[in-house]
């Protein structure tokens, strides 16, 4: 009996040794895209464990509600996504298995597009216009001001979910925001020369970046959002470019290259891949490096 009690108290002790670990357990963040996982790491530091459902090589509009994602979301505490229907094809399936604190309207449910001003909000919506999003363009992270706005909401949510570390998140947000502001002012002066420069995109993934930098988006290789480039559309673009040349044709790492290569060959216009999100290329390992790199690439043209 005595041995049993000693053993029992030993087990209890071990359990209590283990339990503080759960008290400082990290907040599990399920990010739909790598940029939001990166933002969560900026704001949450070592107190969060951020997971991204997609990578820079995957079109976030088209992934499958894979079994691994169901498990990930089920074991997460906070969801952060672009929103504006970007994840409409797979996120609803995952959300059914997520905790009640991650449902729309809850503290653990953050949609960036609901926080920032949206571009290209259509006045009229019809599917004949292609796969346009009634809420507007969802690729909001490419304006760094938006990162500050979303970062603030994220810090608020983290502070509520992990109340013990509320001041930690608030301070990290303040730090992030001041570093971002510093960087923005540098980028803005660096990118002055880009203002007004005409550009062609593969898909309207860069509208926020171009809007921020004051560049001019003269067209897209896709005839309509989500519809792959067609020969007739490319021929029209070719004609257009002959009359009004552009500086560069840009696309994301996940867009196919054939259309931009074709147009580039025919017109002599340079075509480049902008990293678009974290690890879109080797140099873009965090949010700061991402903008640094995109501006450098655009300036090189």
């Amino acid at each position, binding site marked *: 009996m005595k041995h049993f*009690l000693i053993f029992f*108290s030993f087990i209890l*002790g071990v359990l*209590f*040794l283990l339990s*503080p670990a759960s008290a*400082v357990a990290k907040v599990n963040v399920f990010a739909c895209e790598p940029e939001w996982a990166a933002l969560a790491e900026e704001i949450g530091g070592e107190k969060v464990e951020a997971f991204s459902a*997609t*990578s820079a*090589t*995957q*079109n976030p*509009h*088209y*992934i*499958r*509600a*894979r*079994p*691994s994602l*169901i*498990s990930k979301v*089920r074991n997460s505490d906070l969801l952060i996504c672009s929103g504006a*229907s970007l994840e*409409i*094809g797979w996120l*609803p*399936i995952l959300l*059914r*298995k*997520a*905790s*009640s604190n991650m*449902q729309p309207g809850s503290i653990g449910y953050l949609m960036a597009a*609901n*926080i*920032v*001003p949206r571009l290209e*909000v259509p*006045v009229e919506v019809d*599917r004949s216009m292609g*796969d346009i999003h*009634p*809420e*507007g363009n969802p690729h909001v992270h490419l304006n760094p001001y938006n990162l*500050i706005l979303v970062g603030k909401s994220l810090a608020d949510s983290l502070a509520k979910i992990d109340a013990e570390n509320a*001041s*930690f998140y608030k*301070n*990290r947000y*303040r*730090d992030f925001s*001041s570093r971002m502001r*510093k960087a923005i*002012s540098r980028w803005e002066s660096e990118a002055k020369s880009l203002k007004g420069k005409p550009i062609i995109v593969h898909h309207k993934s860069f509208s926020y970046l171009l809007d921020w930098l004051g560049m001019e988006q003269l067209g897209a290789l896709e005839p309509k959002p*989500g*519809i*792959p480039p067609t020969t007739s559309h490319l021929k029209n673009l070719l004609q257009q470019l002959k009359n009004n040349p552009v500086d560069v044709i840009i696309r994301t790492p*996940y867009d*196919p290259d054939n259309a931009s290569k074709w147009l580039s060959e025919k017109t002599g216009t340079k075509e480049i891949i902008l990293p678009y999100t974290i690890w879109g290329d080797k140099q873009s390992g965090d949010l700061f490096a991402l903008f640094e790199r995109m501006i450098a690439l655009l300036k090189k043209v």
Partner: protein
Amino acid sequence: MNKLRFTAMTVIFAVLVLSGSSAFAASDEEIEALRNEIRAMKSEYENRILEMEKKLKEMETKSSRAETTYSKSKDRSFPGRAIYNRNLNPAIGAILGGRFASFSSDEGDIPGFVLGHEGERGTEGISLGETELNLSTSVDDKFYGHITTALVDEVDGVEIELEEVYVETLPGVGLPTGATMRMGRAFWTFGYLNEHHAHADDFADRPLPYRVFLDNGFNDTGAQISYVLPTDFYIEGGGGIFRGNDFPFAGGEGTDINSFSAFLRLGSDIGQNSSWRVGAYMLDGEATSRTGGHGHGEEHAHEEHMEEEEHGHEGEETHEEFFSAGMFTGDTRLYAVDFRYVWAPTGNIHEKELLLQGEYFWRDEKGVYTLTEDEEVHEENLNGESSGWYAQGVFKFAPQWRIGARYSQLYSPKDSDIEHDPYAVAVMGDWSNSEFSRLRLQYNYEKLGEDLSDNQILLQYIMSIGAHAAHKY
């Protein structure tokens, strides 16, 4: 005893104090460091920040203004064009389908199996097929509701089928995270295809085992619960109880729970490029006077009866006839295993994708088969153990183009004395302009009986208008 308790308490207390204080110490230091940093930056960039603050403020007000103008534009409600589930109205969607079919054989029966209404070979020539109407939305913070009705254009008029009418618990209901309960009528979790609507299939028709074992899909009335385990590795288990009135069951009057199911699924990723899922399923219940479909018992029995007369059989029935045209009463249990594997370069399924999928079914069925001929009733106690499987591969080689091949195989019931095991081969190619439209051409070769071979050409369109629910894995 007291001493022991005291020691334990001390240990616990010490541990708590230690862990707590270390955490506080770390965060204090950090906060101080951060504060200093921020102070330094602030003084350095104060002007700049003020300017930016203004810009941010502007954006923030702009953002709230954007919301209001947006919601206003929403209110203008373009008829029939509410796209996604954004307001209090349910998401409304419809699937429009149509096809042309040409068969070389006059007969579409599968010797050794009684086909239900849905599992029969489709109509030849030009037909509408099924037109699906979907309504779905959250009921409140705890429940979600969904309706799918199919309008089936038949020779003798339009038939309305309630394919799915269910409510499902939302995570707010208070069940443990990862648990969901669904009640009503639905395409229940059994194998891979059963959960999916036919419009989402990769082929124009369902494979042989689905046609004979499930009458294309099991959507009995009942309830099902499922639970995703809190593990990193995907494990989901669950089960259901049903009225027992849909193929392979029949005669469930609702007075009792006549059938139940159980399932287990596992899945994961392999690197960035591929993912997989496997599952094991069981469906168990009773059938009373089963001929096929949703309780059309007698009507079909009559048809079969007529057919038998036409064939002009006399005297002794062979076992084959019992299995091909008889009415079944007894216990039926169906086991299934399925797998699905998805591969795409860098995981970007929009450009290229390979889908491999297969299911194996085993039916354990023992009971009485009844044949009625010239008012004479013949009964026989038979072992209807049978099995079947299919495997398919679909390759998307360009964003809008896919090709696929499928092989299905059946093994005739044990006591049926049928030498031939039915099999079918299908190849297809389809083109999708967008996520919402698809055109498909399919060729089938079916060898269902010793002298029964059928060459089929199917041309099909599937279009989705309005809201379109996200697709499952």
